[in-house]
Structures are given as structure tokens and as C-alpha cells.
């Protein structure tokens, strides 16, 4: 292009000078045309997995001028390069200039990086994918003339799954003369705009023993429409793979950071950038250098829960997480996330519905009757006081329950209770409890009839104190009914800040106390009270079904956490528990009574313990590193036989009871596994759980009707022996060792 402009320049001069020699004009025109087809000042070089180019914003500049250059990397899909701080593993790109290039260069201006998660909770990198342009400034030497050529090599680590350190030669020629911008000026300007600006607000880093909190306020960040914020450090002060939960306050926000534990000296100021992503997907970065200090006022509404080490943040999410509860932005916030205004109406409604439960309604009715009499005999004021006392009793009981829950949550430290659903034994216990409550609601066993007795007893209590305690006991003693609703409310607020939890429970209590309160102020309303009757029992039974659906959902969670065998055991455990209850309901009057009681108890306890034991069994470790274990296929068999191995093939299926029994008694035993390994016998599995024509063909070939089938190829022989359907360790070891 320089040649073209030079040609054009000269041509113009020539024409102006009047020398309109046609030949001259033609030659210059030709040169100009050719020049446009000459290679540009620089061309992209293929480094391997990236095209590398050195570009400039100026096509020409005077000697001694400072111009902007940039290293442009166009990456192959799926590959990435690294930011100035690569994170846990990586190297940032760099340019090594040739000796002849004596210009002065500034550092790269780094555009805002992405998160590159490599291993969840363990390895996190920072970098770029697809394309990155790294601008920097170059000052031309004062003695440059004619043209000036920059030459060097770009060295960059580029990774996908694996990493490759690539090198590409780069060169760029700039004309020395009056400054003029080149074709790449706009691109360099665009990428400069993607580099972070200096933060104009205030920042502070609170370093306390249970974590660092970075608070920031003012400046360019307003809470409006922020979808996420992440701190990218210039150095290794923090654990890169840790989540950074954020809390928004009135004047700003604060992020929880995890201090590095790998020996890095974290005492210096962790400079870096805050990257803010707004709801429309745009990202802005701000350079900060937070001094040590207390949290800025109005930034942390409440100290968020400690960041669990898991994934959160901006940018590429190119891996999938397995069922973790993310303590992400806005879970800990009071401003955003799960709105208080959504929870409270439901809590209130839940409280109201409680009044319909068989545990509470009779108490209400009897009290109501008492109220009408009191009104008739003129004790109106006393009634109102009683009503208030009752409400106080109910609400305080719920508040106490909330306080207990918060205490437990606090004592459990920083684990969110939602975490417990990650733990298989807990999920099993919850499933069985929910199932049990469902059985009770259906009426399979009686725990609640005593409530009605209690209720009438309570109603007989006199005085304000009596009314208060009626309230307390209505809340507490009516617990089996309250249980399901309480559980649901608990689930809804489990992760919320303490204030929300307390408020929800209080509102629940209010909902429950309200009808009684209303009655005490307007006894006439008693007419509106539904009369206790058999419909109460039907309603109670109805509520069993949401319980069963909850149990079903918990089972599906369990299935995701573990496998089919644990789920199977849990369902079996539920059946055992139901059986145990049935036995207790049908105890003989005499004679075998104690025996049946024992049987029932065993069924109940066994039903609970067995699935948990199954879930907690550790993974069986491989016996030796040399054992060959794999999936059966005819070609693999040939290969192993060619290599001189013996082979034991287990044709099995999940639904085949004999197969599972043989696994438990023989094939999973250590001594059998060791015998295989020591005698150079490969162990192959042909899984017939799903339809497989190849396996079916083999079964037909060996003239077996189906699974199980056990084939043993002694080392060196190509025809297998067929073992009996029922295995014992002695049988198998004997065959394998030839004894």
C-alpha cells in the first residue's frame, strides 16, 4: 500500500508539473495497480493453532514518533491463550524482538480476560479464546529513515485440552514520513476500548481470619442491571478457582475472596481488575489496587456465607458441573435473588392452612364456642386479651423454632444447608422421613389422635396465661401436622439471611394465629368456622400425596448422586418400614406379641439403616495396577488371546438376580480378583442390561438361553470353557489356577 501511495503521490506531482507524458502516466498507473496487489506491510503467520500478525495503527510516521502496534492472535476454535496472569496453569504471550529492532516498547495493554475453568474447584485460568489483539506502544528510533521494519518472534502458549508452546515469526514495516493512519487503526482502537479503565470509585480490602472481603463503592459501577462481578488479580494473592459471592448494599457491593494457601506472599496489595457484566452481556473492567481497610459503609448489607470452593463467575462455562449448590452472586443478598415479597405471602397462606388440619381445628372450634359464651356473658375485653395471648404464644413458638434453626445453621459453620442434599445418606433419611409422614397422613398409623385429647384439655385452661400456653402448645403439639408445611417453608428459606428466615417463620405463625385472633375480636365470626367433621380426615389424607411426590423427587436426586442399587435399597427400606408399621398395627393380643414387636422393630430399623449402609460403602479399589479389566468384544478377545492372556468373561445384566448374586459371592471378592491378576487373566464384562445383538449372538453361539454366562479362556487356548451358572470362589479360583 505504501508503494501505491508513493506512486500516486509521484504521479500527482508529475501531472501538476504539467508533464503529461502518457507513457509516464501509464507506468505510474500500472505501478499503483500492481502495488495494491503487493503483500501488505505484514501478513498473518500460521503458528499452528493460531494465526499471528503484528499490526500497526500508523501506515507511516516520523522518526522518533510513538505509534501503536498490536499483536493479533486469531485462534482456532476451542483453543485459548492466556492473560497477563494466566491463573493456575499457563503462560501469557510475549514478543521477543530481534536484535536489529531497536525501538522502545511499552507493555501490552491487556483486554478484559475470560475465565477459563480447567478443573472445577482446582484449576482456573484466565485468558482469551477465538481472537485477541494486544495493543502496545512503540517509539521509532530517532534515526529511522525510509522505512522501519520491526521483526521478532511471538511466543505464546496455546491450549485446548493439551497445551502447545508455539512460536511465530512476526514482522511489520512502517514508512518514515508524515504520519498517516493505516487500515488497522480502527481495530486497534476497538481493542483498546476493551482494556480496563482506572476505577474512579473507592475500594477497600478487609482481611479477616475467616476470609477477605473486597468492597467497592461509587465510580463507574452502579448496581443497576449487574448480572455478575468478578475480581481478576494481577498476581496470585487469591485462590483462582474459588467462587466470589457478592453482596449488594446501598452504596456499593462487596465480594468475598479466598486467600491463596500455596505459600504465595499475600501481604502485598492485590492489584487487579474488577470485571462487571451487565444483563445485556456487555463487560466492563476497572483497574483497582485496594488498600487494607474496613468494609466501606453501605457495601455489604450482611457478611455473605463463606464462598464454597466451586464455580461461579463470568465468561466461558465450558464444562458441566455435577449437582452443586452454587453460592453464587445474589444468593446471599437481601436486595436481589429470592424476593422476600414472594416468600411472605406463601408463608402467611401456609399458616392459615394449618388451621384446617385436624390437629388445630378442634382446638379452634372449642375455643370459639367458649368465646361465644364469654361474649354473651360480657367478658369481651378478656376474650380479646386471650386472643392476643394465644397469638403471642403461636408466634413466639415459631420464632423460637426459627432461632433454633438459625443456631444450627450457624453451628454447622459455613456450609449452606442446601449442601446436605449432596450427601447421599442425608437424602436417604429425608426420603424415608417424608415417606413416613405421608404414611401417617394417610392414616396408616396414629400419632395425632392424642392431639385432639390434648386440645380439649387445653381449651379448659383459664386465664391469660392459659391462653398464651394454648398458643404455644397449639403450635408445638400440633407438630405432626405442622411438619410438612414447616419443612416446605424451611426448604424455601434455607439459604436466606437470618432476618428473612425469622420473618418468614413469624409470618407463618401469624397466619396460623390469625383466625383465632379474629374470633376473639369478633365472636360472631364463629358461624363462619367450618364445623369439624370427617372431611378433616379426608383433607389430611390428601396431603399425603404431595409428601409422596416429594419422596419421589428426593429419590431422583439420590439416583443422580449414587446409582440404581442405592435407590433400590432405599425403596426396599421404605417397604420394610411400612411393613414394620403394619406389624405394629396388627400385634396379636398375647402369645407371639413380643416376637412380633421385635420383628416390627427390626423391619423399621433395618429399613432405615440398610440403605444408608449401602450408600456409604466405599468404592472397591482395584487390586493391582496390572489387572486387565474391560468391556467384552470379540475383537478385544482375539487381541488378548494373541497376547497370550487368559480371559474370564462375565455375561451379566442388572436385572439378572443370579448374576448379581454371583458378583456378591464370588466375582467381587478380593481373592478371586487377585487370582485373576496373578494368573494373567483378563476380566471382561458383557453387559446385557440393554439389548445388544453382538452379545445375543454370542449367547446363541454358545447355546445358552441367556445370562448369566461365564466363559473362561485358559491362557494359550482359543476355545473357552463354559462355567456353571452358580459360581463359588473355590470353583473359579480352582479353574484359573488349574487346581
Amino acid at each position, binding site marked *: 500500500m505504501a508503494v501505491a501511495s508513493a506512486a500516486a503521490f509521484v504521479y500527482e506531482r508529475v501531472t501538476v508539473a504539467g508533464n503529461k507524458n502518457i507513457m509516464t502516466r501509464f507506468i505510474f498507473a500500472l505501478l499503483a495497480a500492481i502495488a495494491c496487489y503487493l503483500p501488505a506491510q505484514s501478513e498473518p503467520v500460521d503458528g499452528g493453532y493460531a494465526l499471528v500478525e503484528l499490526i500497526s495503527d500508523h501506515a507511516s510516521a516520523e522518526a522518533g514518533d510513538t505509534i501503536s502496534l498490536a499483536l493479533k492472535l486469531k485462534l482456532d476454535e476451542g483453543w485459548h491463550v492466556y492473560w497477563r496472569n494466566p491463573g*493456575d*496453569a*499457563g*503462560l501469557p504471550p510475549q514478543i521477543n524482538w530481534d536484535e536489529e529492532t531497536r525501538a522502545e516498547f511499552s507493555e501490552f495493554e491487556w483486554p478484559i480476560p475470560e475465565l477459563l475453568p*480447567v*478443573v472445577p474447584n*482446582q*484449576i482456573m*485460568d484466565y485468558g482469551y479464546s477465538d481472537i485477541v489483539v494486544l495493543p502496545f506502544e512503540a517509539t521509532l528510533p530517532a534515526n529511522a529513515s525510509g522505512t522501519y521494519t520491526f521483526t521478532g518472534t511471538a*511466543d505464546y*502458549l496455546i*491450549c485446548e*485440552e*493439551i*497445551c*502447545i*508452546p508455539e512460536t511465530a515469526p512476526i514482522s511489520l514495516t512502517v514508512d518514515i514520513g508524515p504520519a498517516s493512519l493505516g487500515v488497522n487503526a480502527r481495530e486497534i482502537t476497538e481493542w483498546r476500548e476493551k482494556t480496563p479503565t482506572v476505577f474512579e470509585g473507592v475500594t477497600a480490602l478487609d482481611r479477616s481470619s475467616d476470609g477477605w472481603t473486597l468492597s467497592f463503592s461509587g465510580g463507574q459501577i452502579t448496581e443497576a442491571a449487574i448480572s455478575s462481578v468478578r475480581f481478576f488479580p494481577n498476581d*496470585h494473592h487469591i485462590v483462582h478457582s474459588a467462587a466470589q459471592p457478592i453482596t449488594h448494599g446501598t452504596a456499593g457491593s462487596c465480594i468475598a475472596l479466598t486467600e491463596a*494457601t*500455596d*505459600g*504465595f506472599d499475600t501481604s502485598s496489595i492485590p492489584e487487579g481488575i474488577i470485571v462487571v457484566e451487565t444483563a445485556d452481556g456487555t463487560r466492563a473492567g476497572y483497574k483497582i489496587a485496594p488498600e487494607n481497610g474496613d468494609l466501606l459503609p453501605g457495601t455489604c448489607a450482611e457478611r455473605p456465607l463463606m464462598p464454597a470452593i466451586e464455580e461461579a463467575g463470568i465468561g466461558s462455562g465450558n464444562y458441566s458441573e455435577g449437582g452443586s449448590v452454587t453460592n453464587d452472586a445474589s444468593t446471599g443478598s437481601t436486595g436481589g435473588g429470592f424476593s422476600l415479597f414472594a416468600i411472605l405471602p406463601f408463608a402467611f397462606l401456609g399458616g392459615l392452612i394449618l388451621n384446617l388440619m385436624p390437629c388445630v381445628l378442634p382446638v379452634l372450634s372449642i375455643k370459639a364456642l367458649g368465646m361465644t359464651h364469654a361474649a354473651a356473658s360480657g367478658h369481651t375485653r378478656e376474650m380479646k386479651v386471650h386472643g392476643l395471648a394465644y397469638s403471642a404464644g403461636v408466634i413466639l413458638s415459631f420464632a423460637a423454632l426459627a432461632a433454633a434453626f438459625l443456631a*444450627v445453621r450457624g453451628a*454447622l*459453620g459455613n*456450609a449452606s*444447608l442446601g*449442601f*446436605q442434599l449432596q*450427601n447421599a*445418606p*442425608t437424602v436417604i*433419611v*429425608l426420603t424415608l*422421613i417424608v415417606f*413416613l409422614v405421608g404414611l401417617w397422613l394417610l392414616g396408616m398409623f396414629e*400419632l*395425632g*389422635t*392424642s*392431639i385432639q*385429647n*390434648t386440645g380439649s*384439655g387445653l381449651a379448659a385452661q383459664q386465664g391469660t396465661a392459659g391462653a398464651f400456653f394454648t398458643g404455644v402448645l397449639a403450635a408445638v*403439639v400440633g*407438630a*405432626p401436622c405442622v*411438619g410438612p408445611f414447616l419443612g416446605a417453608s424451611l426448604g424455601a428459606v434455607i439459604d436466606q439471611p437470618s432476618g428473612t428466615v425469622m420473618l418468614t417463620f413469624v409470618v407463618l405463625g401469624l397466619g396460623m394465629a390469625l383466625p383465632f385472633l379474629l374470633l376473639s375480636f369478633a365472636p360472631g365470626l364463629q358461624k363462619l368456622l367450618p364445623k369439624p367433621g370427617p372431611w378433616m380426615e379426608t383433607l389430611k389424607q390428601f396431603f399425603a400425596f404431595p409428601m409422596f411426590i416429594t419422596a419421589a423427587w428426593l429419590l431422583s436426586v439420590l439416583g443422580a448422586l449414587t446409582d440404581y442399587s442405592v435407590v433400590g435399597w432405599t425403596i426396599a427400606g421404605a417397604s420394610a418400614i411400612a411393613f414394620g408399621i403394619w406389624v405394629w398395627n396388627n400385634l396379636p393380643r398375647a402369645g407371639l406379641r413380643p416376637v412380633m414387636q421385635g420383628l416390627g422393630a427390626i423391619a423399621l430399623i433395618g429399613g*432405615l439403616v440398610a440403605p444408608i449402609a449401602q450408600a456409604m460403602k466405599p468404592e472397591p479399589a*482395584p487390586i*493391582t*495396577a*496390572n489387572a486387565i479389566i474391560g468391556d467384552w468384544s470379540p475383537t478385544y478377545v482375539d487381541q488378548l488371546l494373541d497376547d497370550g492372556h487368559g480371559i474370564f468373561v462375565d455375561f451379566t445384566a442388572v436385572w439378572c438376580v443370579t448374576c448379581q448374586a454371583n458378583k456378591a459371592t464370588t466375582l467381587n471378592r478380593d481373592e478371586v480378583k487377585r487370582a485373576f491378576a496373578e494368573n494373567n487373566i483378563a476380566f471382561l464384562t458383557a453387559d446385557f442390561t440393554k439389548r445388544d445383538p453382538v452379545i445375543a449372538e454370542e449367547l446363541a453361539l454358545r447355546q445358552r438361553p441367556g445370562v448369566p454366562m461365564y466363559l473362561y479362556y485358559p491362557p494359550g487356548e482359543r476355545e473357552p470353557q463354559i462355567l456353571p451358572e452358580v459360581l463359588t470362589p473355590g470353583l473359579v479360583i480352582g479353574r484359573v489356577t488349574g487346581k
Partner: protein
Amino acid sequence: MLNRRNLSLAAGMATAIALTAGSLIASTGTAAADDVAAPAIGETAPGFTGVDSNGETVSLSDFDGKTVVLEWTNADCPFVKKHYDESVKNMQGLQTDAAADDIVWISVISSAPGKQGHVDGATANELTTSRGAAPTHVILDETGEIGRTYEAKTTPHMFVIKDDKSLAYMGAIDSKKSANPADIATSTNYVTAALDSIEAGTPVETTSSKPYGCSVKY
């Protein structure tokens, strides 16, 4: 009020609450147990047990009283290749010197099956022979358990454990972060420095550094 029915009710409720609370606490207990202490300089190095390339079970406790070097490795990673390169044979030299001083050298391969660097015992032994390497053991940690215990992030990632079981050094093998074997000659080898200090009975100067290399292929 305190009749049998109420008592049994209360008992039932109490059991249900106790069960739930118990399982919640137990599960956090299990979670806590899983959180083995992260490696820290001056603290006892986390123990581990693994199976080596010859099928032997190897535990850190087998080497009580000896200095142990742990080297996370992946033979196909360019940064590992830098140190094993024919032209420098840096890692091989360190291993041979260590063996001469009765220092145990354990190479750990935490690559998961199917990922770069994963090998079976036979191949691991072949690599040792063909590269002229001299580790005391090559542990095949394909579940990544040992890697996670030590929070190994890169290959190479080095740990030096003193004879009193405390961790003396963790981090990069040397000071120049690159994949170029030519940089080895001009960089400081932190492992050698640590081993020399331990030998001389002086405190290790550089106890940790940010490791560089390919990410461990868990």
C-alpha cells in the same frame, strides 16, 4: 397431659428431629473428614497411598526418616519434555543425584484414563528406561486422589518433604517459566536449592513458588 399417648407422640417427634439433625451433622462430619489438610510449608506433609508402575503399593509412610521429592509429571506435556529433553536431561540428572544421596524420588502421574499423560504400568516403565530417568517409584494416580490431596495444579509441580515428614518446598521446579530447554541453564532450580539446604541443615530459602506447566489432566 402427660399421658402415654402424648409421651409416645413426643417420643416420635423427638426421634424424627434427632434423625434429621443427626444425619445433617453426620454428613457435615463426613464432609469435614474429606477435607484433608491442604499441604502447608513447615506442616506435616499429607500422607498418601498409591500403586506404582510395578503394581506395588507405595505409601508416603514407607519412607519415614528419608527426604522425599514428589514430581507431578505427564510425559507429553511440553513443559515436562523441556526438563527431560535429550539436550539437557535436567530431570534425569536431578533424579540420579537424589538416588545417590538416598533421597526418595516419586514421580506421580495423575492423568485420568483417556487424558494426556495417562499410561499403564508397562508404558510408564518403558518411558523411564527410554528417557534414562531414575525415579524410585512412578505412582499411577489415575483417580487423581493424590493429586487433589496435594492440590497439584501443573506438570511439573514439585514438592520436597524433609526427613522429619514436614513439607520444605512446594511449587515450580525452577525460576524461568517457559517450555524452552535452553532456559534451564540460566534459571535457579528450586528443588536443588531445597535439597542442598536440607542436606546442610540450613533453612530452605525459597519455600514456595507458583508452579508452571500444563494443567494436571484430572
